[in-house]
């Protein structure tokens, strides 16, 4: 299993004595084998999360702490990014629309692309960077400094305390972050629209909400639930299964960011296809 210390230490020893042993004994597993092993372990990890998250006792205190960490603490960064995205997308879209003489469609077009795609994905990437690496590094260092072991021997289920709270917090907070980021980005777009043109606030709001449909907003929020889950899951997985001491902590944080960013895009692709399949566009 994945928290099998046997396997990890085995790996550790093998790495340590690699140079002394014959080549065949130290051969690293092939990339495919590694990939499948990693995917299997990740799935088992997710399964354990689902099981443990439903079973009492629930640790609300830690959940709130993590929610604060993931949600509130990311707000500033996410808001700045969203504002800039709103502004930039508007400025960049204007020339094309002007060419078609459809400048008045700017708020409508920009709001749809922001709400449906840009803000959720950019927010998720920011969170993958901030939250994913944070979780990966924190759990990784707890792992290598035996803090997770210490929790285990003190009779607390560290998986529940550390992993369940973090994944749940990320899953719940990301959609809220995205809603706020949507609002901020639309505000940025309003300023963008008014840099070269003049659109009153009332007209802008009217055009934006005239264009937006439930089928724009709701799927994008649902998508974010999965983004949050993926970011929390991968950050925790990479951190919780860290080996090789302090070097491993850096690798865990790095892998958490890289993998969760990639997974965000994969989920986005799937979400686009599913909404398309369900005719929600």
């Amino acid at each position, binding site marked *: 299993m994945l928290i099998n*210390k046997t396997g990890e*230490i085995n790996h550790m*020893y093998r790495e340590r004595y690699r140079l002394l042993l014959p080549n065949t004994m130290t051969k690293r597993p092939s990339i495919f084998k590694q990939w499948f092993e990693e995917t299997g372990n990740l799935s088992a990890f997710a399964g354990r999360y689902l099981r443990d998250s439903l079973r009492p006792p629930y640790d609300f205190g830690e959940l709130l702490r993590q929610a604060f960490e993931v949600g509130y603490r990311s707000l500033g960064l996410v808001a700045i990014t969203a504002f800039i995205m709103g502004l930039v997308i508007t400025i960049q879209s204007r020339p094309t629309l002007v060419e078609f003489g459809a400048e008045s469609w700017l708020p409508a077009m920009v709001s749809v692309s922001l709400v449906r795609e840009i803000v959720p994905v950019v927010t998720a990437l920011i969170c993958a960077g901030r939250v994913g690496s944070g979780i990966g590094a924190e759990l990784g260092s707890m792992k290598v400094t*035996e803090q997770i*072991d210490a929790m285990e*021997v003190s*009779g607390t289920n560290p998986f529940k305390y550390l992993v369940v709270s973090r994944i749940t917090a990320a899953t719940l907070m990301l959609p809220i972050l995205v809603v706020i980021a949507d609002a901020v980005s639309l505000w940025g777009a309003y300023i963008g629209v008014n840099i070269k043109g003049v659109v009153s606030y009332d007209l802008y709001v009217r055009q934006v909400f005239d264009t937006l449909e439930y089928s724009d907003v709701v799927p994008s929020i649902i998508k974010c639930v999965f983004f949050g889950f993926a970011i929390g899951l991968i950050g925790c997985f990479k951190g919780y299964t860290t080996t090789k001491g302090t070097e491993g902590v850096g690798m865990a944080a790095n892998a958490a960011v890289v993998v969760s960013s990639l997974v965000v895009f994969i989920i986005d692709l799937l979400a686009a296809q599913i909404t398309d399949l369900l005719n929600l566009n």
Partner: protein
Amino acid sequence: MESDNGNSIYAKFANGEPVLRVSGLKKSFGTHVVLDGFDLVLTKGENIAVLGRSGSGKSVLIRCLVRLTESDEGIINMLGLDVPDLGQDALDKLRAEIGFLFQSSALYDSMTVRENLEFPLRRHSKHLTQAEKDQMVQEALDNVGLSDTADLMPSELSGGMRKRIGIARTMIMNPGIMLYDEPTTGLDPVTGRGIGKLMLEMKKKYNTSSIIISHDMGCVKQTADRIVVLVNGRCRALGTYAELEKSEDPDVHSFFE
């Protein structure tokens, strides 16, 4: 004279009765054999030091005792319970009777000293009021002589202080059996002696039995009643400090040079 926790299993054992029996314990990682039939008996009120070189499997031994690492084979009987066969709930219950001091102290970085000490209580002593918890925390800190550090973060503490807080955190549950993983490693001799002294004080105050993993002979001499020398995954020698000092076995003797 004894201040055992009234409800604990440990309290039911009389002094001198074995509280831990290990026999034929085997553990290997792949082809690398770490423990190869290790035997040990710990009686109540006794401190046993396990001597061994780096990588000889000392840490693996005590990790196996609390099932942080699963053993391959052999009997581990702790407080009359067969450790390898315990279910999660029974294991958690047993673990509450055992204190484990990690080499790195393993204080939770994100919590204050007070929260660190309260952490083990959350699972096992839910019925406690905040006032009772505060009192227990204060008592534990007083025991290790760091009464006014409750609101500091672990990063603000020195290595010796961290060890003491680590001891306080394990002692707060009133454990019967203490497992020390290299308690003095990385500390200067004076601080190390201070920790050794504290370990003896705790033993005296709470009548604990301990297994001390170390290669610091000063600490071993100071704290251990008996010494086990671990060589090639087996118990090579067993005896008091004075007995083993005279041993002619080169593997044993090398520790006493």
